[in-house]
Structure formats: structure tokens, C-alpha cells
């Protein structure tokens, strides 16, 4: 009797189709089709676009990650679908499934494939950050950037966050400050991002630039615009009541148009520029020698005429 059962079991096992091969054959065209569609059809429209080299680099990164992820997702979905159809419960079949023990080939394949993917992504990501053409991939690199762009001295644009508006200073063009953000195309731009109050985050989406704005810190980010046009700037760090409204628009123009705009704006804003503090990568507005001198002269004591100190108590 026992021998008969064993024979039946062997007979059914030998009749079992090669599920692995079948799953592979179903998965392969789906994975290839998904990758082709992702890379060539949807890829060019993936965020954040191709307005700058850093944006294009980010888009390429997302395309690469999508192409790597799609086959994995397809494999999981095909496996689920195959299981639901082939290994579904059938009427009268109430037996437990066969006990499964270690399968060295599958384990080795799984470990190897995932290790290769992870190591490739680590190398790829490091290269994308370090390559001078991308120079930090549009991210804030802190006050002493490791990755800097090639191609000459960049245009300096200081980004100043304050509740709830961005202002921009152009130290190479007279140091004027304005609420309008213009940058030239095909020239490296260095954003020096800081804040006068709480933490903000300068996020120029289409430029592929995002850098936190911290008071007392100069956070440097680079990009080089490749396309003309407008872009949106948002604050990406919850910064108070009107954080959601801390939005404005910038524009990429030709170098000649940028220089003309900067020269004209410098003249237009000359009166207020002389009231600004000298250009600096960071500002501490709680230290204003002029105002203290004026207050002492006026004989004013106490809070009137002074800033409230950083540690002003009565916190909620």
C-alpha cells in the first residue's frame, strides 16, 4: 500500500509542468514591454522634466529606477496571477501542499540579482551626484560643496527665505535684492540659500533644485538651465501659517537678456539697495549696530525698537 502511494506521488510529480519556465515565459514579454514603454514613451514626460541639467539628470535617474523596478513588480504580479490560476483550490482537493525546504539555486539567484541591483544603484547614484555635469544633482550641498560645476565661474544667486516670501540677491550685479528670480540659460548658476527666520526649503521644481533654507547657514546648490521658460518656486518645509502660499515664479532667459534685466533692475532698486546690509552668505538680523545706536541715542530701553530675543520666553 505504501509503495503504491509513493508511486502515485512520483507519477504526479513527473507529470507536473515546469512552472518556473512558464512563469518566466509569461513574465519576460511583460517585463520587456513595460521597460520599453517606461523608458521611451513615459520616460521623456517623467518629473521634473529637462529644463536644466540637474532636472534632466533626475529624470534619467527616475527612468533607470523605473526600468529596474518594473521587471520586479511584473514578476510579483505574474507570480500572484499564475498562483491564483494554476494553484487555485479545486473541488475535492483538501490535501496540504508539499513541504518545501531550501532551494539553493533559487536562493543564490535571488541573492545575486538583488545584490547586483543594489550595488549598481549605489554606484550609479554616487556617479550621478559626483559628475561635474550634474554637480550635486541640484541638491543643497551645505556651505562647502564637494561637487562643483565645470565651465567657469557660476552666476551667484542668493535665495533668502522669510515668512512667507522668497527674495533673491545678485551680488555680481550690484547686490540688489528683488522678489523676481531670473537666471540665464547655458551658464552654471550657484544658489546660495539661507533664511532670516525659520527653516524653509527652496524648491524650484522644474529646475530640479531643492535646498533647505536655514537661518545662519549658506546652503549651496548648482544647476545649469538648458531650456528657456518659466518655472515655479515653492517652499517645501512647513514654515508657518501661510507656508502653502509661499510660492512664486522664476524665468530662464538668454544670457544677454539676463544681463540686461540685471543691469536695469540694479538701477531701479538702487535706492533700497543702499539700505540693505552688505552682501553676505548669511545674515544675523538680530545684530544691527545702526538700530542699537539709534535706540541708545533716542533713550529707548526695553523691547521697543529692538528685536525680541531668540529665547524670549512664555512659550506655549
Amino acid at each position, binding site marked *: 500500500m505504501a509503495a503504491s502511494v509513493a508511486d502515485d506521488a512520483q507519477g504526479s510529480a513527473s507529470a507536473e509542468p515546469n512552472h518556473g519556465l512558464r512563469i518566466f515565459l509569461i513574465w519576460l514579454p511583460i517585463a520587456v514591454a513595460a521597460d520599453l514603454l517606461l523608458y521611451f514613451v513615459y520616460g521623456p514626460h517623467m518629473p521634473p522634466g529637462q529644463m536644466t541639467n540637474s532636472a534632466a539628470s533626475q529624470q534619467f535617474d527616475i527612468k533607470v529606477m523605473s526600468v529596474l523596478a518594473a521587471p520586479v513588480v511584473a514578476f510579483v504580479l505574474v507570480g500572484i496571477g499564475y498562483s491564483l490560476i494554476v494553484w487555485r483550490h479545486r473541488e475535492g482537493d483538501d490535501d496540504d501542499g508539499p513541504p518545501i525546504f531550501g532551494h539553493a539555486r533559487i536562493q543564490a539567484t535571488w541573492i545575486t540579482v538583488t545584490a547586483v541591483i543594489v550595488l549598481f544603484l549605489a554606484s550609479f547614484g554616487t556617479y550621478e551626484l559626483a559628475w561635474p555635469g550634474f554637480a550635486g544633482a541640484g541638491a543643497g550641498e551645505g556651505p562647502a560643496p564637494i561637487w562643483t560645476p565645470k565651465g567657469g565661474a557660476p552666476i551667484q544667486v542668493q535665495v*533668502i527665505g*522669510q*515668512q*512667507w*516670501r522668497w*527674495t533673491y540677491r545678485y551680488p555680481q550685479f550690484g547686490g540688489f*535684492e528683488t*522678489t523676481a528670480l531670473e537666471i540665464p540659460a547655458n551658464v552654471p548658476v550657484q544658489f546660495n540659500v539661507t533664511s*532670516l*527666520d*525659520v527653516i524653509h526649503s527652496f524648491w524650484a521644481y522644474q529646475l530640479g533644485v531643492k535646498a533647505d533654507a536655514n537661518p545662519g547657514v549658506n546652503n549651496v546648490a548648482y544647476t545649469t538651465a538648458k531650456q528657456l521658460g518659466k518655472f515655479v518656486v515653492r517652499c517645501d518645509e512647513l514654515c*508657518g*501659517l*501661510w507656508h502653502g*502660499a509661499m510660492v512664486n515664479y522664476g524665468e530662464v532667459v538668454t544670457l544677454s537678456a539676463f544681463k540686461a534685466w540685471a543691469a536695469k533692475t540694479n538701477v531701479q*532698486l538702487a*535706492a*533700497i539697495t543702499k*539700505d*540693505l*546690509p552688505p552682501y553676505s552668505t548669511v545674515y544675523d*538680523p*538680530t545684530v*544691527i549696530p*545702526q*538700530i542699537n545706536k*539709534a*535706540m541708545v541715542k*533716542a*533713550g*529707548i530701553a526695553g*523691547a*521697543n*525698537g*529692538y*528685536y*525680541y*530675543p*531668540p*529665547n*524670549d*520666553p*512664555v*512659550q*506655549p
Partner: protein
Amino acid sequence: MSLPARVVTLLVAFLAVAAGAAFIVEHYFLGGPPTVDYSAGVTADTGATVHVVLQEDPQNTVSTHPDWVSYFIQNPTTHAWIHTTLFKVPAGSKIDMTIYGYDGCTPLRNPYFGRVTGTIGGVEYVDGKPVKSLNSWSGCNVGHTFSIPGINLNVPMATPSNPNANLCSTSPCTSGPHKTVTFSFMTPRTNGTYFWQCRVPCGGGFIDGFGGPMQTIGFMTGNMEVVS
């Protein structure tokens, strides 16, 4: 647990949840300061002139935060001062704004906002004298600002000439040293809600002066609703 006990427990739980929901609706959605309507009887998009009147006070004695600085808005019909920062104006209209500045000086965090922008002629009038900017770092001359970023409007509020004078201590202020600031601007031609704010860190008692009245509608920030 017996059936009556379970019913009572369920009822109590339901009432607690309902009370919580009612509190949230009342407190956060239906509560808050009133809106002063300057649009009544004015046809939008005709360039009609509307006169809006505000005052900023060194404190307010009409709320649960008497030590917070605050704006008030005048009701155009009764001329009563309303403790609110919400007002409604017609679209495509000329706003003649008068703001009485009763508060003392505090320097701007960013002196760039000492510049008048967005007004007709790029100018404000301080006690009738045209001014294009105020340097709050060189003297005691700016108390607050009235700024609507959405239309690039920024007007620094001048302070009383004598910084040692006793400021008004009862709100809304009707007497005491003050400056009268006037300016005009055009409202957008389309409906919308535009937040406005003060750019002077005037939230005494909060870190760097950025909390309290600076972050609370009804005190130093609010909305201008444009309607047609």
C-alpha cells in the same frame, strides 16, 4: 456586560465623539473673526473707489491675548472698529486705504521690505507726505507692514514721531500718538482670496518674535477677499 450597560456605554461614546466633532466644526470652521464687507453696493470691474480703514495697535484689550499687537478694521457703515483682519473688496476697483499706526517701532528682519511696492505710483503717504521707502535699520520709524504678497503690495507702517511718547493703551485706539498712512492700489479683476501679513517680527513672547499674533488670523495677518 449587560445589554443596558452596553447601550449606555455606546451612547456615551457616541455623544463624546459627536461633541468632539461639533467642537472642531465650531472652533475651526465656523469660529474666528468676522469679515468686514467693503464690497456691498459697489459694482466690480468699474474702477470704483473704495475706502478701507485699518489701525494697528501696540496691544489689544478686546481679546484673550491682550498683550498681542493687533490690527483692527473699521466697519464702513457704522465706523465701529472690528477686531478682525478679514475684509472683502470688489474686484477691479481702486482701494484707497488708510491705516492709523499707533504702535512703536521694531526693525524689519529684512530692510528690503522697507520699500513701498504695489501701490499706485509706488508711494505711500505718511501724514500726507509721500514716501517710497522707510529705513527701519537707521532709525525708529517702522512699526509694522501691510503686505499682500499675491499682488506684490508692501507698505511699511510709520511710527509716531516721538518714540518716547506713551502709546495708546486701550484698543481700539482713538487717541494717542500715531501716524496716518494712506496709499492706493487696484484689486485684481478676478475673484480670489489674498492673504496679507505684517513683516516685522512683532510676536512678543515668542521665539524671535515669529509666533503668536504673527501666525494668528485676527491679529497681524488675515485675508483680503476679492469678489465680483
